[in-house]
């Protein structure tokens, strides 16, 4: 059995020895370098761009501006292409722009012999702008008379959507009975960035009749398509190679500079060009997690039953659409999928173009934002009626068997309540709630929690397709090729385990190719959602069954036995009737290759078109100590409990949860990409942007309720993104318990807390 064992990562040895090659490690000799020139205003038009001095810098090979790139607008998000025009992503971006839509927009690109020349030239380019007043907030961009960021959206609303659940409207629900306790609140989440340690570098060159691009991406096959859309090149003439990746978290689920880099190489005769993006550029000019404001109302009975809620969510898109409205549309689904409103739920969402950094996908795809709002409201409602917030959730949370009325995604397995009960025990909820009641003094403790649910893949919103190829080697080992990508999460290791399970070949003889090459690798849309162990492994399972059947057929021929009586277990062909070991697979493989009678290279390939989706769920419990005069929150104890189906690799699953919790703690307490009134990013570096360090991070406890999901290929469902979701609201709710002060925006920074505590009278002047 290869499932449920803590196999060590198949790539760990390469990574501890330095043998793992990432994009920048694969630079060919005599590579040119490219540098993107970014706008120094957030909104306006480039009126003139003077290149003469820059072109005179020794070592500068070429400088391109918006005049020198094809006039194609293209979409950038890592979504499968839709064959229906109405469902295609918004194509609002060009490789280089004349109209500037955020501070750091791409207006020119320099190709030079080295970085010194490129940097010198960049400083000598003089740009004349016609500057407009930039919109930093959604309110500014939606104000009457605001200038259009994109002419295609005159009112700056990229998209609007909404839904209603229940027989009546929120207003009617309020009028329908007496004695309801109601709340109206605004919860705000901030702009944060992925901060994968590896920067999004790419290298492009022309060879073998193709434009080749090595890039740090989660989505190689999608990058190929978008390079084609952006440049006008035939898609088959583009080859994208994905080596080891140093983290992505959604930023690399977007096509970033690959089209520009391909185009630059073609402008210098196909010579290799390396386009490096600095940490500062990555923070300011790639993608961020959307800041979303939630204007929320809720009504409960005094017995704790949730009667109705209403939400209007406004999402700050920044200058280009990227993943666009899909994010906030997902965020408001969180309200629907997490609780049962007895009478009414109304949700509306707007995605609004502004002039800050571009919002894209980031671990949780809108749910960290939506969950913060839904889970702050849950605690605030419970508090308003004097009810224990855990009891409130147990009473009102989504039940076993829930099916979303619009998407029809279901909880095919359900462990939400069990997860809450487990978290309750692990954190000692009941004892601590009692112990920390009615505290006084400057340092107080509290305990809080939050729940979440999360769909595993993207069906039926988008296509879910995955392919796999297995090739039998001469010694009975196999090579597994998948379009699904290892980006650090451990995909190749669990694919190895699952391929072993599917074939009967032992894990030591399964090799998953970590490098994707779109000329070789079968199609898969890549690493996003929490889909690969679910969707992509359906292809592994299907291909594994095919390969096994072919091996058994050959074994049947070689052994002159009926194939129905044969099985492949632990690298051996066995007789299913007697259990007798008949022959090692290695011998069968060797014979198949070299038989003078019937030579056959045994391979298998299959596509799995997944048309099902299931909810994962779970919760976070946090115990905190708040230093009120300093506004400091110290997390004393924290546990995430996950309902993610069967664990394929328990140790890696735990590690995945740790990382998500850490990201959640940064979201809760310290991370925020700040912009001034002109739309300039104020802290686009890792000194001022406060990523948690080891010193900021408590011990992280990961727990699971393992309930096999009948739709998962091996009982598994989502675990990649969920750990990051419930942490911020759990910490916020713990601070509420400790101090009685509800902080309604992220992050819970010391300055914000001190102001709130002073306002609440906890700090005297």
């Amino acid at each position: 059995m290869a499932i449920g064992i803590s196999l060590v990562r198949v790539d760990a040895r390469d990574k501890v020895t330095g043998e793992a090659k990432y994009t920048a490690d694969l630079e060919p000799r005599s590579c040119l370098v490219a540098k993107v020139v970014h706008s120094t205003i957030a909104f306006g038009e480039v009126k003139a761009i003077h290149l003469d001095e820059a072109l005179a810098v020794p070592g500068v090979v070429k400088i391109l501006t918006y005049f020198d790139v094809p006039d194609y607008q293209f979409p950038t998000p890592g979504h499968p292409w839709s064959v229906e025009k109405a469902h295609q992503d918004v194509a609002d971006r060009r490789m280089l722009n004349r109209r500037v839509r955020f501070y750091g927009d791409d207006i020119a690109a320099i190709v030079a012999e080295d970085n010194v020349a490129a940097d010198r030239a960049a400083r000598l380019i003089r740009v004349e702008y016609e500057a407009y007043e930039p919109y930093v907030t959604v309110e500014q961009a939606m104000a009457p008379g605001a200038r259009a960021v994109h002419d295609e959206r005159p009112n700056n609303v990229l998209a609007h959507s909404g839904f209603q659940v229940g027989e009546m409207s929120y207003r009617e629900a309020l009028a329908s009975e007496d004695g309801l306790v109601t709340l109206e609140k605004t919860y705000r989440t901030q702009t944060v960035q992925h901060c994968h340690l590896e920067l999004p570098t790419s290298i492009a060159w022309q060879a073998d009749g193709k434009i080749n691009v090595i890039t740090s991406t989660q989505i190689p096959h999608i990058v190929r398509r978008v390079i084609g859309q952006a440049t006008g090149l035939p898609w088959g003439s583009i080859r994208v190679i994905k080596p080891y990746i140093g983290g992505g978290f959604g930023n690399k689920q977007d096509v970033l500079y690959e089209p520009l880099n391909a185009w630059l190489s073609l402008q210098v005769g196909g010579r290799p060009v390396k386009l490096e993006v600095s940490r500062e550029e990555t923070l300011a000019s790639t993608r961020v997690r959307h800041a979303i404001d939630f204007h929320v109302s809720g009504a409960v009975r005094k017995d704790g039953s949730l009667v109705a809620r209403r939400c209007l969510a406004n999402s700050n898109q920044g200058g280009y659409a990227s993943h666009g409205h899909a994010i906030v549309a997902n965020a408001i689904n969180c309200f629907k999928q997490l609780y049962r409103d007895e009478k009414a739920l109304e949700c509306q969402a707007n995605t609004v173009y502004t002039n800050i950094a571009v919002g894209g996908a980031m671990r949780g795809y809108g749910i960290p934002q939506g969950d913060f709002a839904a889970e702050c409201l849950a605690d605030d409602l419970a508090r308003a009626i004097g009810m224990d917030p855990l009891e409130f959730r147990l009473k009102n949370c989504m039940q076993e068997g829930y099916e979303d009325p619009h998407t029809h995604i279901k909880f095919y397995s359900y462990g939400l309540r069990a997860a809450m009960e487990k978290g309750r025990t692990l954190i000692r909820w009941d004892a601590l709630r009692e112990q920390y009641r009615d505290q006084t003094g400057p340092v107080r403790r509290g305990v809080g929690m939050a729940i979440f649910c999360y769909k595993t893949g993207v069906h039926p919103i988008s296509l879910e397709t995955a392919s796999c190829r297995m090739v039998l080697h001469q010694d009975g080992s196999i090579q597994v090729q998948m379009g699904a990508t290892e980006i650090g999460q451990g995909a190749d290791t669990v694919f190895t385990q699952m391929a072993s399970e599917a074939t009967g070949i032992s894990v030591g003889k399964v090799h998953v190719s970590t490098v994707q090459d779109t000329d070789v690798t079968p199609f898969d849309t890549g690493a996003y959602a929490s889909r690969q162990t679910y969707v992509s492994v359906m292809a592994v399972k299907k291909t594994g069954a095919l390969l096994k059947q072919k091996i058994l057929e050959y074994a049947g021929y070689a052994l002159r036995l009926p194939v129905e009586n044969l099985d492949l277990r632990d690298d051996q062909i066995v007789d299913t009737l007697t259990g007798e070991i008949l022959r090692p697979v290695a011998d069968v493989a060797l014979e198949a290759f070299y038989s003078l009678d019937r030579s056959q290279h045994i391979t298998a390939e299959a596509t799995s078109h997944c048309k099902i989706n299931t909810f994962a769920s779970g919760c976070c419990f946090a115990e905190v100590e708040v230093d009120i005069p300093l506004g400091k929150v110290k997390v004393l104890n924290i546990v995430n409990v996950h309902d993610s189906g069967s664990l394929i690799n328990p140790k890696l699953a735990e590690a995945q949860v740790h990382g998500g919790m850490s990201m959640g703690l940064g979201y809760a307490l310290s991370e925020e990409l700040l912009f001034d009134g002109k739309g300039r990013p104020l802290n686009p570096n890792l000194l001022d942007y406060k990523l948690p360090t080891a010193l900021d991070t408590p011990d992280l406890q990961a727990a699971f309720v393992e309930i096999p999901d009948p739709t998962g290929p091996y009982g598994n469902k989502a675990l990649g993104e969920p750990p990051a979701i419930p942490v911020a609201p759990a910490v916020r709710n713990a601070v509420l318990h400790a101090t009685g002060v509800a902080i309604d925006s992220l992050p819970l920074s010391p300055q914000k807390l001190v102001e709130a505590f002073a306002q609440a009278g906890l700090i005297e002047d």
Partner: protein
Amino acid sequence: MLKILHMTVNGKAEELAVDVRECLADTLRERLGLTSVKKGCEVGECGACTVLIDGKAVNSCCYLSVWAEGHSVLTVEGLKGPNGELSPIQTAFIEEAAVQCGFCTPGIILTAVEIVGQNRPYTREELRKLISGHLCRCTGYENILNAVERCVAENLARQNAD
């Protein structure tokens, strides 16, 4: 302007011409092919480019190559034993699942080599502080601390046994 630099890298004497403006991370990566030295920020914020210079952890992105004249530099390429066997620290990182995307891994391993080499016990809180110059976005540091703690303890046990 190029200058001839003499340094020991992973136990081997090197003599090479470097640009006087060049940082050690670039020299190691581009002139010696030691690509385990990762560049995550190039301003000393992330710790991915950490190497040991005479046993002390240094951000090689902020260290001019010419300063390495006469010094001894260690990267993870130099950690393996004579027969290619992994060092105990590398093994601990593998077994404790302290590796995810792997980009911060070589740098943290080298800091761990420095810590373990002190031959003294550390509390977990002390270890947190000692590795806090390394940013990791994947692990929450939990398993990294487990691996470093284990290496410190195993090393002391070995010392006591000897």
